[in-house]
């Protein structure tokens, strides 16, 4: 009878958390704000960069009339206005590209030059330009080739700089870990505060007269976790919808993978930290003391989050950060960043996820012991060391 009732009890506790927290105006408003923020973050760069703008395209070559014609036509086909800027030679073309005077240079019958080949490939006006110029070359060089243009012969697009795999991908990585970090800290603190409230209001004694401590703890982290997951799912959905709707480069294959890996690590990270936050909450008798016991739990997250900025804007991560990617407390933030920056292959991500999952089991055991030993102790704040000693006794 007891074991049969164990899940319903845990679920009743989880259900209370969901109903009490999910119904509040704060939850609705924060969800809305986060969704709008994500939508703006994804769609704004795409909206700002496209449409209505006049593109300046440099031309290098003798036949300026034909080249200007190709540029104008390419602009028309891709719904933009393209203006040809004649340039004397390749050196001048490169200088113009670097200074931003022109966004691309068409070198007669040779190639299309850009400062950096976009991660999303040569689509849009740039693609059209290379296609048209290639076609023009074909028609001039091969008599009767006009009939064979269906092959779609495009001039090569060359970047002046090595295609950094992924500014877009790195930015997606950053976006992902901001969500991981925000969700774990916000909901983790809610767990700790909620448990602090149960202790300080003394309702815990009434609860524990029918519910086992483990059921109370698991129910709480489950309920709050489901709310966090709902919010995360809503944000990812907005990310994908807004990304596709605005044609943002953030939702192309590679970056979508980063978001999915981020999703896995949100779940793993929450699972790892939720019990630790519960243990932290069980140490206090007054809610105002919660901040001080929660800080040591948050510390690995804070440090990794801060270090992530150095990885995102650097060529490759240092060894220390690589190690963080495989440690359960830091992997949920470090691994998505390493993957987004192209510093680790997928199999390493899988290893890190497995390590985090194993760490989660260990953390749950330790945290449950601390929680069970501390939840009914009133009086001054208990230190983690004292709590562990109590748990062993």
């Amino acid at each position, binding site marked *: 009878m*007891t074991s049969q*009732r164990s899940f319903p009890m845990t679920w*009743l506790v989880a259900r209370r958390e969901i109903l*009490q927290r999910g119904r509040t105006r704060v939850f609705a408003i924060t969800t809305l704000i986060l969704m709008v923020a994500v939508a703006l973050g994804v769609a704004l760069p795409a909206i700002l960069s496209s449409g209505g703008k006049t593109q300046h395209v440099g031309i290098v070559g003798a036949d300026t009339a034909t080249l200007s014609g190709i540029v104008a036509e390419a602009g028309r086909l891709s719904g933009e206005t393209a203006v040809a800027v004649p340039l004397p030679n390749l050196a001048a073309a490169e200088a113009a590209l670097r200074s931003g005077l022109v966004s691309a240079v068409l070198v007669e019958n040779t190639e299309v030059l850009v400062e950096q080949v976009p991660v999303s490939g040569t689509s849009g006006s740039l693609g059209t330009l290379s296609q048209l110029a290639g076609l023009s070359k074909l028609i001039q060089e091969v008599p009767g080739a006009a009939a064979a243009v269906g092959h779609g012969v495009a001039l090569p697009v060359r970047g002046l700089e090595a295609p950094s795999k992924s500014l877009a991908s790195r930015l997606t990585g950053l976006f992902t870990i901001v969500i991981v970090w925000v969700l774990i800290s916000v909901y983790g603190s809610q767990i700790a505060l909620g448990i602090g*409230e149960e202790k300080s209001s003394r309702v815990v*004694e*009434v*609860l524990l*007269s*029918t519910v086992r401590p483990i059921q109370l703890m698991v129910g709480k982290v489950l309920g709050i976790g489901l709310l966090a997951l709902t919010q995360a799912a809503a944000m990812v959905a907005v990310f994908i919808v807004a990304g596709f709707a605005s044609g943002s480069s953030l939702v192309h294959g590679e970056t979508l993978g980063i978001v999915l890996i981020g999703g896995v690590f949100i779940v793993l990270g929450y699972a790892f930290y939720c019990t630790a936050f519960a243990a932290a909450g069980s140490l206090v008798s007054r809610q105002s003391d919660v901040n001080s016991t929660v800080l040591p739990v948050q510390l690995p997250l804070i440090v990794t989050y801060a270090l992530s900025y150095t990885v995102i804007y650097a060529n490759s991560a240092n060894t220390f950060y690589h190690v963080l990617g495989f440690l359960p407390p830091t992997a949920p933030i470090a691994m998505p960043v390493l993957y987004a920056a192209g510093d680790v292959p997928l199999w390493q991500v899988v290893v890190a996820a497995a390590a985090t999952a194993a760490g989660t089991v260990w953390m749950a055991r330790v945290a449950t012991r601390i929680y069970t030993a501390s939840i009914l102790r009133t009086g001054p704040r208990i230190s983690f060391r004292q709590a562990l000693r109590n748990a062993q006794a």
Partner: protein
Amino acid sequence: MAPLELEFDGLRRTYGTVKALDGLSFGVPAGQVFGFLGPNGAGKTTAMRALFGVTALEAGEIRWRSKPVDEAARRTFGYMPEDRGLYPAMALFDQVDYFARLHGMTASEADSAARHWIGRLGLAGRGRTRIDTLSHGNQQRAQLAVALVHKPELLVLDEPFSGLDPAGIDDMSAILAERAAAGVTVLFSSHQLDLVENICDAVAIIYQGRLVTSGTVAELRRGDQPRLAVRVGGDREAAWAEQVRGIGTIESVRPDGTAVISLTSSGDSQRVLDLARAAGPVEHFAFEDRSLSDVFREATGASVSQAEAEHAQRAMAGGR
């Protein structure tokens, strides 16, 4: 005497150097209002918490209907702890409903039971109110509703009368009596021994973690040695009473000349009356019951307030 339904058997629990429970044993008969009495610090709360498994015991056993108390049994108990506590931000109805569900009621049972008790305790119309915006008295009622909502077979209340005004005490007593009449076994603790002597059918009095005495209130107040209060007109010093030596002892002489005599046997009361009549006009002659605090003092040699002062001193010195 009704059969024992709840039995505390040899409970032991130490906090540091303080023996909170020192081999405490007593039984609670079915369907009665049973008072669990003793000065503050006697171990009442520890014993009640042990009953609900929120304090571990070093030794001893608590049995409900002859079987050790387990989780299934506890779900049929209602509990109002000394440290009252409910979720401050949760609405009254949701809260009562939640505890009904935790005790195994279905959603619809919990719904109607919560409605019933909120109304019965005079909180109708407050169902949507947050607990922390209710008045102190209404928070107490909410706490009682939580303890009662799942139709418990055993109701356990730790100091239910503390902090109540006289009207609140009458309300609470009426509810306890009503529950007992409905077949519920009611166990409540109090350190105000005399306040509750008219409320309980039977009591257990404890001190320093041990049982001092237990029995029906009537038995305890009568005691082994019945007490007579006798006043003879014109004799302010009760000099006549010197003659009762041999059949009883003079406990005290009140300022109005009433002699309080404890008899060796109740059959001797008529001989005392004869002696008094011979001394003068008898103005007052009656059996007098002891108060429960007298019972406590006689058994322990200390008054309830002395015992509490000692406990407070020990707690201050030992830091618990």
